[in-house]
Every structure is written in structure tokens, then in C-alpha cells.
């Protein structure tokens, strides 16, 4: 048999049966099935021990940020995705979309076979040969210049391979497109710095960030990386980053800001411009001001700008004061706006001011070419679509969904009819595939080879963690290109993996590594890539040449619509992942549905109630959707997130909500997109729907669940240690404490544990992104219950992000709430059958199979973190492949809750026992802690006085939720800072 590699092993597994390993499919079957089969391996795999996970490094392809991932493989299946700690983008963290890649892999609606349009016009399943033949015929018959690819902004090996392939075929065009493109930023950068590259924000250097709409904690550029950097700076009390957000609808990013200024939507750029002008004129800028810039800034007239942006003098003065006092402010422009001259204006003003204030030290950095600058501008795209049927006869679509995600002004549906032939390469059925002539099911990235280069010097490898999911006859996209190339008679390598290795040999050469390639390659696979960082040494040098003219603002409209990119669904590509659909939006707390956010006062004025369905009409189109009151939006503005409204994207996405791309219109006389400030009409339809929201109340109702501390007060006490909770208790209630002391002896006479697990939640760092929620669902086999059950209030999350709108300020509090593992747990004594008891490690144990389902524990839980199985929830094949075999799949009628990831604790303790030592601090990371991009969660042993948690438990910012109930929780929260000098 020769040497057997891991790949062979996986092949063998795939060829055998689903369970071709030395243990049964634990956890996938309902309990008490009578005969369990156990399947022997045919040929054992090297280094693979059933029951012990393997980890493989790979790269996320869900958005252009390309975080490094680690996938956890058990018995040949990927069961969890985590961040790669070595990777400079993710640093061991990930967002909810990254985690949900797993549900892309195991999506039950993935295409099982190629589809071909038959003479009757029906798409039917066909054999691979037939489908390939159809495409080859077409390609042979079409002049190469009439063929075009629509792809994501590719980087790495696939980018060069596709380019070579297309050139070899005779000049097939490639159109890379990203709906949330950074066209405006790139144009501004080109105008100011003479280079069409992204000037990356550097949160470490900045002392103030003013964002005129960029949602850098959600979707903008590289949210996981930015969240980490931002949270670090915010949590650092001595060098705390001040943050002002300027936008009409408060975003998740804005909700963390110290101050929110809400101008009329779409007018933020003029405010940025005015700020630039006034700063220039104030004469406080210490760096030379280029004349062109000074002249350009003259176009912003204070009274005019303030009047049409609707921003008060006081607010603007505050902004100005903050910027002038800051040494190195980081000013960011708008979020979206492909090619939009207004957004370009905003970015020019923002970047110029950043550069002028900071000079050489400006908190911007060059990272060379990135995935963002590879995307075509919206103008190009518009021309491209216009040319369908003429310049382009055959369209090859790879991993894009133009018929859903192209704004309606492009009229892609009409344009599609002009195309002679459209071939779609996608793992999933979608709107574009539905309209295609031939559809090829390709592999999802977790089961495929590839790489990415999110920015220069970060070479990130993408290796398969498992054999392709056998339910679908998918093929690797690269290998498909090779097959096509062979048939079309162009020279291609044998496999894409071979090409990839060649590509990496070049990289090895480029970085000057002289080891044998195999050694280099092994290290790359182990580490997940090669992370050298950009060696661009360019400084931030303003070289403005011709600055574009400042456009005239559109006349104001009321109501005006803001379309914002969804943190969860992105441009809609994540909509077929049940986790993503199930997790509510962090701010409006609605899952599965689209809602139109309306200010509560406006709703009252317009005689609308929550859940009332309205017809929303723009010049481009009209949709019907329910309204949701949202107090953090400017009066007269309504807002809608992208991503819903799919018509053919599998069971989890189809028919849910409305598609915002339908509503986006062109910016006043240009061919660019207008995302905010769209003039809309609202009409009441008279229908009502129940909103699938998970929040019980908008505000804290006077309860001290979320607490704050003035920064100044904290600084006086920084570094001090509060007494431990035990000491405090001892002091305040000596008699009770004495009773407990005596009683603790009685408690565990057999084995006193060296551990008491504790968790710290830093509410200052937490940005509410809900990555932890999805990570928890993945780790703990938490089912998604669907829209109807969410409406009924039966969500199953073990951890939730509570959102409270502050009553005094614009602040939004995010409180991650999970089982508090109380020492005096109210849930425990009320259980009649001992299904929930306390462990020596201080954990509140829940024994599912002992539970009879009285639900008394849940009633008596003041934190309401217990979850009851209202039904036996099903995991449709092959979503069940993702289930964690170390966690029971619960059946109907039992209670469940957060366990602090007991399976991970057990694993670590088991290993520690083997090595005859105690568990080390930081060795255990529950899924939520591991995921948190803000690093707001810390887990550890509170009995070890040197552990991080033990110290944080004594931090002056510490508090416990509902402390007065004497539940003695094992979760401590750290108070959020307020700036005392705030008005």
C-alpha cells in the first residue's frame, strides 16, 4: 500500500461509509436506539486516534478580509472552525460569518449535481460530462473576447491561475466584483496620495477615531482585526481611544462611540469637508497644507453645510474641539458607496485631515495591494452589465450572485436575457444559478485547496480539512478549470494542487527562503501560511493633484432610507446559514426577517406600530416589510439591512425578508450608487406580522444589569485590587460567611477541588458582534429553531448578547449573558430529581438525561439563561455532520444551558492528569472566549490567585449582575467607561 497520507485516509473514509471509523456516530442518533453499529476502519490512518481531534489551518473565504482559521476535525469531519492564533488578520479570533462557513460546508441545500438547461428551458440534474460538454461546446463556438468571468476579487494562486487560463484561451475577460467595494476610499486615496491602495487605519497609533459612517467593527475592510485593535485601545484606560461616530442611523460600531452625531443621511461627507476646512483655517495644523487641498476645502460653507446636514452648532463645535485636541486623530469616511463622488469627497476630507493632523505619525498604514483594490469600480461593472449580449455573450460566474446582489439599477435580470449563455460555478443554488444555462457544483472552501493574500506579505493557505462532503458531487473549481482547459486544448497543470504548490514555490523564492520546498510547505500547512507582513515602507505623504469637485447635495427628503450592510448576512451570501439567520441583529434584535427601522417618535407620528407591514417605494423598486422601532436613528430616517429577500437560495434564505439591493438608486445624475438618504415613500398596507425578535425590553428599566464607571474615577483606582468576593462577603456578612465556611467543609468532604472556574466579561471591550453566540451554537450542538419559534420566544442560545439602549445618552449597552454558574444557584434546589447540581469546580451541572422537564429551574433562574427543548430539533442531513461528538444532542422535554464548555474543561483536565500537573491558566478557552474578536472574555481558575481571572475578579471595575440576590455567580463583569467630561 506504500505510504498512506492523511489525504488517503480521508479518501478511505469517504469511500467507506459515513461512520467509517472506530467509533459510532455518537450524538447523531437519538438516545436508546437499540442496535448501534460500530464500523472498523479499513485501513488505519497515521497519527489519527479516534476520539482525539486534529486541527488544520486554513483561510476564510467568506469575505475579502481572509481571516486565518483552524478547523477541528473529529473522525474525518470538520466540527468546528476557530481563529488561527498565528494569523495576523484574525489572531485566533473570528466573526460569526467565519464560524458559519461550517454551515456552508454542510448546507443541506448544496447542489447535489450539475444542472443543465434542457430544450424545454428547465434546469435538470445531469452528469458531470454532459454539463462540461455543454460549456465546452459554447466556449469553442464563442470568440474568446466575447467571454467574461464574473468573480470575487481573487488573490493568490487562483487569481493568477484564472488570469493565465483566460489569457491562454485567447483573452477571456475577468470582472472581479465585491458588492461592498471600497471604491470611494480607493479613489480618494488615489487623489490624495497618488496610489490606488487602501490606507489601512491604525487604531494602535490613533488617539481619536471619528468615523463618518465606516462600520469598522462590522463589515468594513477587516472587522475581526479592527475589533481586536479597537477593543484593546478602548480597554486601556490610560490610553483610551476616544471615538465619535457621525451617521444618521447608529450602527453597531457607532453604539460603542463616546459621542454620536446624527446628520441627515448621506450628508456626512460635507460635514467632514467642513471639518477639514475649519481645521485648516484654525491654523492649528502643524503640518504643511498643500494649496490644492486648501482651495478644495474652501468649497464647504459653514452655514450651508450645517443647515443641510442638520447638525447643530454645538455638536459641530464639539467635534471640532475633539479633533483639534487630538494628536493623531483617525478620521474615516463613509462605509459604502461604490464610485460615489460624494463618498469620495468624504474620504478625501477624512484622509486629508488624518494626514494633516498626524503627519508622518498619522494613524494610517500602507499594506500594498489588497483584495479590496482588485475589485472593479461600480462604473466599470455597470458598463460591463450594459454590454451583456454585445461585448459579452457568454458569462461565467464564479462564486458570485449577480442576479441577487447587483443593485436593481443595473437591471441584471434584463441583461441576463441578452446573454447567449451563462455558466455558474457555485456550491449552492441561488438566484443566478436558477437563471443559468449550466450550473457546476463546486467545493466549498473548507473542503478545497487554495490560498489568499488579503494584503501584501500575508500569504494564507487554504487546505481542506476533510474529504468533500459525499452528499454532493462537487468538484474543485481549480480542477474544473483544468478539465475545461484540457478539453479546450490549452496547456494546464495536472491538478490545481500542483499549480498551488508551484505558486507557493514562487512565494518561497520571493521571500528568500532557501529550505527544501517540502519543508517550507509543511510549515506553511502547519502554520496556515506565511505571515511576513507588508514590506511597503511608503510613508503617508499628501500629494494631492487634481481633487474632484464637491458635488451639490441632493434635496433633502423625508422619509429618507439608509441601507446598511448587515453584520450577519453581509451582502446576502450568508443568508443560507441557519445560525446566521437565527442569531438576531445585535441592535434591532430581529432574526430571520427584514425590518424597517423607524424612530419611535416617527412611528407614532406616522401612526405605525411595531410589526405593521409597510410598502416602501423608491424610484427603483418597492418592497413590503414590517417596521421595527429603533431609537438610535435620526428622526425622519428609516433604515434597512442588506442580505435578505432571497428567492432561490435554499430553505433557510428563500422567502425571508426583502432585498435591499432592489431599492438602491443611482446617485443624482451619476452611475454610482446611493446607499443612504434615498428618498422613499411609506405606505401602510394594513397587514401585521409578529416580529421574530429576542429582546424583552429596550432599556435597562432601572436595573443595574449594565453598569458604568467614569473613566476619571477608575483611573484613580487603577492597579488597585478590590478584596476578593469571599473576603468581601466575610466582612459584610460575618455570621453567614461563618456558616458557609463550616458548611463548605461538609460540602465536599471527599475531594476538595483545586479549581473554581470563572469567567470575566469586559463590557467596555464587548462590541456586541455575537461571534460568541454562533461559536457557542457550533460547539454545543445548539439547534436553530426557526422564525416561528423565535416569535414564540423559544430561542435556544446558551449565550445571548443583551442590548439595552441607555436612557440618558446615545450609548448602547451590550451584556453577554450566559449561565452565571452561581455558587448559590437558585435553579439547583428547586429541581426535584437532582438534574442540576453543583460541582466541586464551582460549576452548575445540568444532566440532560436526568431531567424530567418541570422547567422550575428556568423559572427560578434570575438571569433567564436556561433553555428548554420545546421539540426534538432536527439537524437535516448533512448539517448533523457538524455535531460535536463530545456534547449530547438533547431531546424534547429537557432543560439545557451553558456549561462553560465542560467538554473542553474535561479535555484539558484529562491532559493535565496525563502530565501530572494542574491545568494551566489560559489552557481552557470555552467557545465564546475563543471566538471573541474583542477579547472581552477571559476564562480561568479563580482559585489560583495568579490567574488572569482571579486578578480581574478583583479589578475596581468588577461587578456581578443581580449581586443583591446573593446568587454568588462565577461570572464577573467589568464596568464600561463613561467619560466624565462628556456633556
Amino acid at each position, binding site marked *: 500500500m506504500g505510504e498512506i497520507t492523511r489525504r488517503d485516509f480521508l479518501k478511505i473514509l469517504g469511500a467507506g461509509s459515513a461512520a467509517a471509523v472506530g467509533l459510532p456516530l455518537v450524538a447523531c442518533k437519538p438516545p436508546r436506539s437499540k442496535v448501534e453499529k460500530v464500523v472498523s476502519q479499513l485501513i488505519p490512518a497515521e497519527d489519527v486516534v479516534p476520539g482525539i481531534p486534529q486541527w488544520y489551518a486554513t483561510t476564510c473565504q467568506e469575505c475579502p478580509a481572509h481571516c486565518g482559521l483552524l478547523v477541528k476535525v473529529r473522525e474525518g469531519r470538520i466540527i468546528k472552525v476557530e481563529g488561527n492564533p498565528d494569523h495576523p488578520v484574525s489572531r485566533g479570533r473570528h466573526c460569526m460569518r467565519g464560524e458559519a462557513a461550517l454551515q456552508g460546508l454542510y448546507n443541506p441545500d448544496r447542489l447535489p449535481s450539475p444542472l443543465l438547461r434542457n430544450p424545454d428551458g428547465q434546469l435538470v440534474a445531469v452528469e458531470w460530462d454532459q454539463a462540461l460538454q455543454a460549456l465546452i461546446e459554447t466556449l469553442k463556438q464563442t470568440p474568446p473576447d466575447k467571454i467574461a468571468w464574473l468573480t470575487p476579487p481573487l488573490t493568490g494562486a487562483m487569481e493568477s491561475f484564472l488570469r493565465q487560463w483566460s489569457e491562454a484561451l485567447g483573452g477571456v475577460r475577468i470582472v472581479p466584483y465585491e458588492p461592498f467595494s471600497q471604491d470611494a476610499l480607493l479613489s480618494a486615496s488615489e487623489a490624495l496620495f497618488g496610489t490606488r491602495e487602501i490606507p489601512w487605519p491604525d487604531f494602535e497609533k490613533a488617539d481619536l477615531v471619528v468615523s463618518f459612517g465606516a462600520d469598522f467593527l462590522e463589515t468594513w475592510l477587516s472587522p475581526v482585526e479592527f475589533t481586536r485593535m479597537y477593543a484593546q485601545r478602548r480597554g486601556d484606560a490610560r490610553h483610551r481611544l476616544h471615538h465619535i461616530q457621525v451617521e444618521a442611523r447608529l450602527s453597531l460600531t457607532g453604539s460603542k462611540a463616546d459621542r454620536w452625531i446624527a446628520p441627515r443621511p448621506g450628508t456626512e461627507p460635507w460635514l467632514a469637508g467642513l471639518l477639514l476646512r475649519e481645521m485648516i483655517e484654525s491654523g492649528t495644523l502643524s503640518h504643511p497644507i498643500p494649496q490644492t487641498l486648501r482651495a478644495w476645502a474652501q468649497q464647504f460653507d459653514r452655514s450651508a453645510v450645517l443647515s443641510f446636514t442638520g447638525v447643530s452648532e454645538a455638536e459641530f463645535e464639539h467635534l471640532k474641539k475633539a479633533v483639534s485636541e487630538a494628536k493623531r486623530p483617525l478620521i474615516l469616511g463613509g462605509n459604502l458607496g461604490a464610485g460615489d463622488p460624494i463618498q469620495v469627497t468624504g474620504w478625501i476630507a477624512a484622509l486629508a485631515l488624518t494626514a494633516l493632523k498626524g503627519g508622518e505619525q498619522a494613524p494610517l498604514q500602507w499594506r500594498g495591494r489588497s483584495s479590496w483594490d482588485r475589485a472593479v469600480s461600480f462604473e466599470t461593472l455597470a458598463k460591463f452589465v450594459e454590454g451583456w449580449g454585445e461585448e459579452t455573450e457568454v458569462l461565467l460566474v464564479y462564486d458570485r450572485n449577480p442576479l441577487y446582489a447587483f443593485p436593481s439599477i443595473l437591471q441584471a435580470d434584463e441583461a441576463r436575457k441578452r446573454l447567449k449563455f451563462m455558466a455558474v460555478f457555485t456550491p449552492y443554488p441561488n438566484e443566478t444559478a436558477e437563471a443559468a444555462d449550466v450550473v457546476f457544483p463546486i467545493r466549498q472552501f473548507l473542503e478545497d485547496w487554495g490560498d489568499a493574500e488579503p494584503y501584501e506579505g500575508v500569504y494564507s493557505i487554504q487546505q481542506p480539512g476533510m474529504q468533500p462532503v459525499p452528499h454532493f458531487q462537487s468538484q474543485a473549481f481549480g480542477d474544473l478549470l483544468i478539465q475545461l482547459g484540457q478539453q479546450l486544448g490549452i496547456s494546464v497543470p495536472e491538478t490545481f494542487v500542483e499549480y498551488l504548490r508551484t505558486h507557493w514555490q514562487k512565494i518561497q523564492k520571493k521571500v528568500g527562503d532557501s529550505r527544501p520546498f517540502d519543508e517550507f510547505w509543511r510549515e506553511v500547512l502547519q502554520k496556515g501560511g506565511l505571515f511576513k507582513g507588508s514590506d511597503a515602507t511608503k510613508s503617508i505623504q499628501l500629494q494631492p493633484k487634481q481633487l474632484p469637485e464637491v458635488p451639490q447635495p441632493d434635496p433633502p427628503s423625508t422619509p429618507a432610507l439608509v441601507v446598511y450592510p448587515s453584520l450577519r448576512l453581509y451582502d446576502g451570501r450568508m443568508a443560507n446559514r441557519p445560525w446566521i439567520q437565527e442569531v438576531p441583529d445585535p441592535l434591532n434584535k430581529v432574526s430571520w426577517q427584514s425590518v424597517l427601522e423607524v424612530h419611535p417618535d416617527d412611528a407614532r407620528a406616522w401612526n405605525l406600530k411595531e410589526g405593521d407591514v409597510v410598502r416602501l417605494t423608491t424610484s427603483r423598486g418597492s418592497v413590503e416589510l414590517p417596521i421595527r422601532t429603533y431609537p438610535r436613528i435620526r428622526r425622519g430616517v428609516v433604515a434597512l439591512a442588506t442580505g435578505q429577500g432571497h428567492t432561490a437560495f435554499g430553505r433557510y434564505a428563500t422567502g425571508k425578508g426583502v432585498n435591499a439591493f432592489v431599492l438602491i438608486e443611482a446617485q443624482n445624475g451619476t452611475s454610482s450608487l446611493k446607499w443612504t438618504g434615498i428618498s422613499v415613500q411609506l405606505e401602510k398596507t394594513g397587514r401585521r406580522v409578529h416580529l421574530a425578535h429576542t429582546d424583552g425590553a429596550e432599556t435597562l428599566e432601572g436595573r443595574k444589569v449594565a453598569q458604568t464607571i467614569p473613566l476619571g474615577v477608575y483611573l484613580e483606582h487603577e492597579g488597585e485590587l478590590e478584596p476578593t468576593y469571599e473576603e468581601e462577603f466575610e466582612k459584610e456578612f460575618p455570621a453567614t460567611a461563618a456558616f458557609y465556611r463550616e458548611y463548605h467543609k461538609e460540602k465536599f468532604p471527599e475531594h476538595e477541588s483545586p479549581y473554581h472556574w470563572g469567567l470575566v466579561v469586559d463590557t467596555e471591550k464587548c462590541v456586541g458582534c455575537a461571534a460568541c453566540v454562533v461559536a457557542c451554537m457550533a460547539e454545543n450542538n445548539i439547534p436553530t429553531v426557526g422564525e416561528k419559534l423565535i416569535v414564540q420566544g423559544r430561542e435556544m442560545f446558551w449565550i445571548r448578547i443583551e442590548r439595552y439602549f441607555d436612557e440618558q445618552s446615545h450609548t448602547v449597552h451590550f451584556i453577554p449573558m450566559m449561565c452565571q454558574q452561581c455558587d448559590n444557584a437558585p435553579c439547583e434546589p428547586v429541581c426535584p430529581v437532582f438534574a442540576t447540581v453543583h460541582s466541586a469546580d464551582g460549576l452548575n451541572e445540568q444532566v440532560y438525561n436526568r431531567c424530567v422537564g418541570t*422547567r422550575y429551574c428556568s423559572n427560578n433562574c434570575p438571569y433567564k439563561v436556561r433553555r428548554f427543548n420545546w421539540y426534538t430539533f432536527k439537524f437535516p442531513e448533512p448539517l448533523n455532520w457538524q455535531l460535536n461528538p463530545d456534547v449530547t444532542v438533547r431531546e424534547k422535554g429537557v432543560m439545557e444551558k451553558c456549561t462553560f464548555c465542560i467538554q473542553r474543561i474535561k479535555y484539558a483536565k484529562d491532559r493535565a492528569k496525563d502530565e501530572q500537573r494542574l491545568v494551566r491558566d489560559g489552557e481552557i478557552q470555552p467557545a465564546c472566549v475563543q471566538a471573541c474578536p474583542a477579547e472581552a472574555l477571559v476564562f480561568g481558575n479563580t482559585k489560583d490567585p495568579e490567574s488572569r481571572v482571579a486578578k480581574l475578579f478583583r479589578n475596581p471595575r468588577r461587578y456581578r449582575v443581580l449581586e443583591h440576590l446573593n446568587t454568588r455567580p462565577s461570572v464577573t463583569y467589568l464596568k464600561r467607561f463613561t467619560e466624565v467630561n462628556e456633556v
Partner: protein
Amino acid sequence: MTYRKITQDALRLLLSRPGWKYFALQGFNLLLIGLGVTAFAYQVHHGMGVTGLNNPVGWGTYITTFVFWVGIAHSGTLISAILYLFRSRWRNSIYRIAEAMTVFAVMTAGLFPIIHLGRPWKFYWLLPFDYFRKVWINFRSPLIWDVFAVLTYLTVSMIFFYVGMLPDLATARDHSTGWRKKLYTLLSLGWQGNHREWKHYRLSYLYFAAFATPLVISVHSVVSWDFAMSIVPGWHSTIFAPYFVAGAIFSGVAMVITLLIPIRKIFPYLQDYFTIDVLENLAKMLLLTGAIVAYAYVVEYFLAWYSGNEIEWAAFKFRALGTYTIPFWIMIFCNAVFPLIFFFKKARRSIPVLFVVSLLVNVGMWFERFNIIVTSLSHDYIPAAWGIYKPSPIELSILAGSFGWFFFWFLLFLRLLPALPISELKEIQPVPTRKQEVTA
């Protein structure tokens, strides 16, 4: 009234064949039971999701109905045991019916804790045995107290019911024929009414009454502790035990009135026993207990407000003015306002008024429990976790089924067992003496 008349009147119900209306009613009851059973089977098959319960509100209609029926049960024991100890002889004519009501109400109530379980097929885990797993039950849980209290109450009230009936069953045996004779022979265990039997019986009955009296108070206290022992605002209150006991008697007395009035109407000869004076006495009890309940409502609000506990006060404000304001005001009017009419003697002696008010009190008391359970859970400590509960058709079907179940047994009892306590009615008559006969 002679002994003979009492015997004959009492046996008229037992020895005659019921008319078609009776069978029609029983058929209707069986239909309701069928509905309830079907709904329960559906719920077991699919899971508790078919109810309206959700994350904050883990208990709803089932526990409400459980407490409701346990409450109904209480006045039976009150009338049979407590009034016995107090020598209130007017209770003798109605105590059998009240006691039967107790037994059947506990039988009905006892079903609900099982119905409300997520995994009802595991109900036996609540019994004190470890099934060889070495894990017993948690005696610190109020639900286990409940198991013990309700099972004890069921057993003891059934024994008490049966023992009180023994001499009457003997009477029925001695005056029946055919299958009835066989049945009553079996049930009466050969009771003769001899001096030995009566001697031990007298003391034994006294002890039953003496046990039943604290038991009845303990049972509803334990039921109230299901709530009061928790930390839920709106539940965690020291007044719950007396408040629940008073409420239970209140609802039970109302149910006795509700049952007696149609019986009187259908069998007019029973009006000699269920006299208007008896009803007036019941109305007085209703007035008294209703006043206690109303007082408890006020005290609850006073405590919540004066204690200064914001969360507690918020829970009570929500109860009165929030989503569940309608059930709340139904409760207030039915339990605290309408019974005040019994301050008037005329109302106490008016059959229609008695009937309507007793029905309203029944409704009000169901809503009282609904209010306590649902509103408190719905809005507790963490605002983000608040939620609203609405009963589902399945729950309402089971609720309807519980009425069918109760009335099925009750109607069966009316025609099968002596509903008039024969020997105890005779006891309150002057003993037949020749002296009297001669003077008469």
C-alpha cells in the same frame, strides 16, 4: 324528618335508573376527556412546543389549572373535617358532596404536574426511589414537597371519604338488589352498625378529621411554596401560604355552591336537605374568605410598594397595567368585588345571585393563579429576557378535558354512591323515642 325518609331520599338517587339526560351529560364529559387525552397525546408526541410556553414563562395554563383544582379540593375537607371539629352540624347534609368534590378535584389536579412535564413518561422519577441509579430525589425541592403533599392529600381524603361513607354503603346494600347489591356488599365490607363498629368508628373519624385539618392547610401552603420558595418577583412572598389557603377555601366554597344549586334544581326533594340556610352559610363563608383574599391582594401591593424593592414593584405594576391587565381586573372584580354582595341577606338567600357569583368566583380564582404565575415569570429580573405567554389550543383542550374528567367522576358519584350522608343526617335528627311519638 324520620330516619326512614332520610334513607329513602338518599337511596332514590342510587336505586333508580338515570334518564337519558344523565347519559348525554356523561357522554359530553367523555367527549371532553377524549379531547384532553388527544391533546395530551399530541403534546407528548411533538413536545411541549405545542403549548404557548416559552423562555421566560415556563409555567402557564397547566400549573394554573393544577393550583385551581387543588384549591377547589380544599373546601371539601374544610367542610367535612374542620366544620366537623367545630361541631357545625349544618355541614352534615352537604359534606358528602363537598368531600366527593375534594377527591375528584385532587384526582384532576394530580394529573397536571404530570401533564406539564417535558418528559411525562419519566414521571415516576419524582417518586422516592432510586431505580438502582443511586440518585434519589431532591427533598429540598418544593416540587417534591408537592408530590408528597398532593399524594398524601389524595390518599387521606379518599380514605376519609370512604370511611365516612361506610355506614351509608351498608344502608345501600341493605336496600338494593341485583348488581347494585353486589357492588354495595363489596364496598360496605360487611358493616352492620353494631356497637363495636360504632365505638371505634367514632374515635377513628375524629382522628381523621384531626389529621385532615392541618393536612388541608399544609397542602395548599406547599402549593403556594412552589412559588414562594423561588426568587421570582411576585412569587417570593411570605404571605403566600395563608393567602393561598384562604383562596383555596374561597374557590372551593364557590364550587360547592355551583354544584349544589343545579342538583337542588334537578332533584327538588333534595331541597329539604340542601336548604337555603345551608346555602346562606356557604355564602357567608364565601364572603369571609373572599374578604381575606381581597385583603391579601391589597397587602401584596402594599408590600411591593412600601418595601421599596423596585423590581418587585415593577412586577406588580406590570401585573395590573401591563399585557395581562384584563385577567388582572377580571380577578379583582370576580374575587374581591362581586362577593361583597353577600353582605346583603337577600343576596345570600337568592339562588340566582348565589349561582352567578359562585361561577364568577370560580372564573376569578382561575385567573388569580394565572396572574400570579404568568405575569411574574413574564417580567422578572432581566429586561432583555422578558416575554409574553398566551395559552395554546392544546392547553385549552386539556383544561377543558380536566373539567370533563372532574364532572365525569362527579356525576358517576351522584348516581352510584350515597351523596346524602345518611347516618350523619340521622344523627342530627332527634332520635326516635316512644315518648315523643306518644306526645305527638
